[in-house]
């Protein structure tokens, strides 16, 4: 009898654990939603950074425009994405001695996924790789090709339909971008807006 009671107790405990796991999974793996309904199939999100800058150690590199094209879908209830394009425009440095000769995203597409940090939805961009070729006779990085690599987590604001990337969001999501063996700073505010089948519909993550 004791065994049976123990078994029942164990079953209930296991059930509670399972429920807790499901509850955690549900909150840790949010989905893309349009007008509160889960996205079915794929959608293209296209946007340009409202503001963005990247600080290579000692040298701030800014791009006036920073576009992106992200194909999103829900896979098994979890929001995923594939960043297929990220053209950059008018990139400069904060040093008059250093110019950005060439800059571009490499190894596209970069995969992305949604997750939850505390109660905030996040998008994690993985496999980030940006190549930069600097020029300038008096530039210590002149004729040097620097690569930014890593992953970046940005917090999603459903009300504003934006994703914010900065030191805090990268830290909170356990992601980092590195160049020259050091962590780099990336600040970016991106709108998250559908461009294809769900145009004009509110895009949210939950």
């Amino acid at each position, binding site marked *: 009898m004791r065994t049976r009671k123990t078994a029942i107790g164990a079953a209930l405990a296991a059930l509670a654990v399972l429920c807790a796991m499901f509850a955690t999974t549900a909150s840790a793996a949010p989905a893309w939603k349009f007008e509160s309904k889960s996205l079915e199939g794929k959608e293209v999100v296209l946007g*340009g950074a409202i503001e963005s800058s990247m600080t290579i150690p000692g040298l701030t590199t800014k791009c006036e425009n920073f576009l992106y094209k992200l194909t999103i879908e829900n896979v098994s209830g979890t929001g995923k994405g594939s960043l297929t394009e990220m053209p950059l425009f008018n990139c400069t440095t904060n040093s008059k001695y250093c110019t950005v000769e060439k*800059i571009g995203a490499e190894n596209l597409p970069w995969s992305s996924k949604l997750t939850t940090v505390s109660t905030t939805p996040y998008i994690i961009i993985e496999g980030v790789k940006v190549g930069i070729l600097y020029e300038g006779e008096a530039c210590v990085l002149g004729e040097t090709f620097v690569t930014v690599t890593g992953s970046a987590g940005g917090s999603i604001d459903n009300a504003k339909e934006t994703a914010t990337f900065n030191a805090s969001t990268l830290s909170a999501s356990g992601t980092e971008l590195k160049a020259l063996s050091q962590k780099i700073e990336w600040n970016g505010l991106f709108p998250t807006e559908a461009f294809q089948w769900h145009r004009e519909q509110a895009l949210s993550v939950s």
Partner: protein
Amino acid sequence: MASRTGPERLLIAPAKAASARALLALALAALLLSGCGGGSSEEDPAAAAGDSTSAPAAAQAGSAAGSREAGGAAPGAAAPAKGQAGSTPSGSAAGTAQGAAAANGARVAVPRGPREQAPGAKEIEEATVADISLQSPAIVASAGHLGRLDPTYTCDGKDSWPTLRWAGVPAGTAELALFVMNLQPVEEKIFFDWALAGIDPGLSEIQAGALPKGAIVGTNGFGELGYSLCPQGAGETYMFALYALPTALSPHRGFDPLQLRKRVLDVSGNAGLLPAVYERG
């Protein structure tokens, strides 16, 4: 009421177990039906709308042209009637950016100027690729900040070089060259705090204050043969740079580092770069 002893409790256990099984079954059914009560149901918009993020509110904000413009509109980006453009846009992000700006309002800033080009394979081959890992225990980086150089290795301390360690020197390297440069040029020229050539490519570190055997010392920006890291003002940002050379350049002692670096950049395909900041006080 008489309290039951342990054995008495066990005596009524069969009946309790039977009801417990029924209860367990009911509980299982209830929990499964309610999705264990965790998270919101994917198929339940009402539940989703009940999240902290209000979907209707988001929709309202999203459709308000004014709020979109406030979100960082590119000046002059026209926002014609929404949904006016084709429903299946195609093409690249760059190519469609202007269309997107027009169709979706001002949230997609219209790019100004030409699109930047990624370095091509030939350009990367001709450039010096910063892919050698260069580290120093005297340069400690904190999150989001440049590595800070220990004052010991400046003119406020011993004014001698710190330990430097590297990895990833390509095979076939004939020699290594090392420079410490101010990030900010002086009189429009790179200022060298230290220049060292002829370093054995088999080495993977330089110990603090110990010159590697066979290394050739250049003349630094102070006109001295050796190392001196001494900011003029409150502080300075420096770049420690190690270059792998496929051919030995064999400069003479006291060489001009500016001239040597030009030659280095012409031949070197790989470098290790370590920025560091030193601030007094």
